[in-house]
């Protein structure tokens, strides 16, 4: 395997690692906890992809992070994008995967631990003074933004999204803010024009850059410097002499043209770029 192939494979491997890490366990949060009768822990997938949580752990003990193991055998141990899953923290683990082997109480903390048994993905503490009819929940301000920075007591809503205020779709918000559609229309038309104007500018520049012979420009600059400096070298001098001889002597235009081209090439770095195919027609 060549060095280039090794580098390419390494880059691809890194990219794949990045993709694999794209939708992972860190997108899970403990969104709500209830410690009254039949306590439960609600876990939310905040990502836009399905997350498989089998092999993770749930615990209420910071010193025993591997307290309840979420079985890998249960096919239901995955949660869809922006979906929730509820675990009953009722010490009835023999009743299925979604029943833990510990009972969550007021004053304790629920931890969701990664498959390595060490990394805490998320936690939620329950105050010891909590009303037995209330849960503790993480709320987000906007169902689209999904920033759960508001933790407080609430009415228990297992399996439901915790948002402050009414959850509106984008279209509903637009209908409210811009009922006649004029703002959207003006903004959209401007963006379409802006995008194509941007492309117009970009392609104009690309066209200029691609069609400029920079070698020629550099050569001209160099020849200017040369002219300003020393006498032409021996080859150039010979070519010039030959050109002059031929031009003044026999009227052989072909040789004169070759000599002139040589002169231009050697002295001023000027030359045509041809297809590099020379065809010689034999004279009969």
């Amino acid at each position, binding site marked *: 395997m060549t060095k280039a192939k090794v580098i390419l494979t390494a880059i691809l491997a890194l990219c794949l690692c990045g993709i694999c890490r794209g939708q992972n366990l860190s997108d899970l949060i403990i969104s709500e906890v209830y410690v009254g009768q039949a306590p439960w822990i609600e876990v939310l997938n905040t990502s836009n992809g399905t997350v498989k949580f089998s092999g993770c752990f749930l615990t209420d003990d910071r010193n025993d992070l591997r307290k309840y193991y979420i079985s890998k055998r249960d096919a239901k141990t995955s949660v869809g994008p922006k979906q929730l899953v509820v675990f009953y923290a009722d010490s009835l683990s023999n009743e299925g995967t979604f029943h833990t082997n510990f009972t969550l109480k007021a004053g304790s903390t629920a931890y969701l631990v990664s498959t390595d048994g060490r990394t805490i993905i998320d936690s939620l503490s329950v105050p010891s003074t909590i009303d037995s009819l209330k849960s503790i929940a993480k709320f987000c301000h906007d169902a689209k933004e999904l920033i759960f920075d508001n933790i407080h007591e609430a009415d228990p809503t297992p399996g439901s999204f915790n948002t402050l205020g009414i959850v509106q779709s*984008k279209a509903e918000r637009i209908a409210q803010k811009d009922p006649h559609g004029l703002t959207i229309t003006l903004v*959209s038309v401007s*963006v*379409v024009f802006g995008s*194509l104007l941007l*492309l117009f500018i970009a392609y*104009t520049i690309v066209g200029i850059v691609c069609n400029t012979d920079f070698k020629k420009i550099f050569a001209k600059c160099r020849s200017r410097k040369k002219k300003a400096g020393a006498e032409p070298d021996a080859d150039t001098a010979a070519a010039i002499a030959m050109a002059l001889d031929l031009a003044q002597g026999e009227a052989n235009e072909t040789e004169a043209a070759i000599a002139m081209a040589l002169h231009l090439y050697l002295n001023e770095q000027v030359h045509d770029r041809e297809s590099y195919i020379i065809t010689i027609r034999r004279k009969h």
Partner: protein
Amino acid sequence: MDTIFESLQQFWQYTGFANCTLQHIIMICLGIVFIVLGIVKEWEPLLLVPIGFGIVVGNIPMFPGLNVGIYEDGSVLNILYQGVRQGWYPPLIFLGIGAMTDFSALISQPRLMLIGAAAQIGIFGAYLIALHLGFSPNEAGAIGIIGGADGPTAIFLSSKLAPDLMGAIAVSAYSYMALVPVIQKPIMKILTTKKERLIRMAAPRAVSQREKIVFPIVGFILTAFVVPSGLPLLGMLFFGNLLKESGVTRRLAETARGPLVDVVTILIGLTVGCSTQADKFLSTTSIKIFGLGLLSFIIATTCGVLFVKAWNLFLPEGKKINPLIGNAGVSAVPDSARVSEGAGREADPKNHLLMHAMAPNVAGVIGSAVAAGILLSFLG
């Protein structure tokens, strides 16, 4: 004997004849009209024939539960329909379009790109009217995109914004794409003077291979940064073009513009046609969508032509643009460019506008994908 009679009677209940309604007959007739237009008139036959046949397939009367209908989970048609429903087919078609389109006309005259932007006003004009007719913003956005004259984009956006209206929107978009010469030509003639129609434009310059390779890369990065939501369409369009122009991926380009796009066109046409089942399709909403689609085409064509006329006021003699290429800003490639050519040659048989019209035409493809991305960002 009684058993045989009962069996036959039972079988009769299973047949299409027993379950047929007037709506089924109307839709089957519509499908046949599409097929006839495609075969006899040769109006977009690659689209109208599969869609027309799909309409016939989707409207064969049957009783539910056979698990063969397009809206029945797990049926063959339902599985194929997922490509439309989930929006997989349109980006694949865009890949093929990118691999078959020569953007040289646009690269050599980038200023004509702005005509492609002007024609997109049709989308937003129809959006405004649809809102006033009582459609919700996302439905209005999906209906408006018909004005982009781009079937795959219309399917892509309606699958995201208004899946229930997708059948009507797709059929409307493809129908009007087939009718581009009929709709656009009279508008162009009304809006231009004889003197304007005679304007001759300088021949476009030759485009180097290097420019052609740079085009999809720069184009993609710029447009995707402005409208990331248009990524599936823009990404595939420019990727297809890079395959074509790079010169080293000839096989991939040939597959993209050949077998791949053919397969997807068959599937998209057939399943879109099938999705127009009488009970879901024959409604006043569909009629409104057809009306709005026509209106958006008219607005798009008008804006394209008027934009060129207005632009000409600021251009010096010799640099003026023939307004007959203004209609080509919609992305019905290459039909609207052909309309420009035809109209140009009617006024002056020696004036060829095709190459000039191809520039706004392909800019229209980019513009409609950008417009779809914007609508998706706001309403999705």
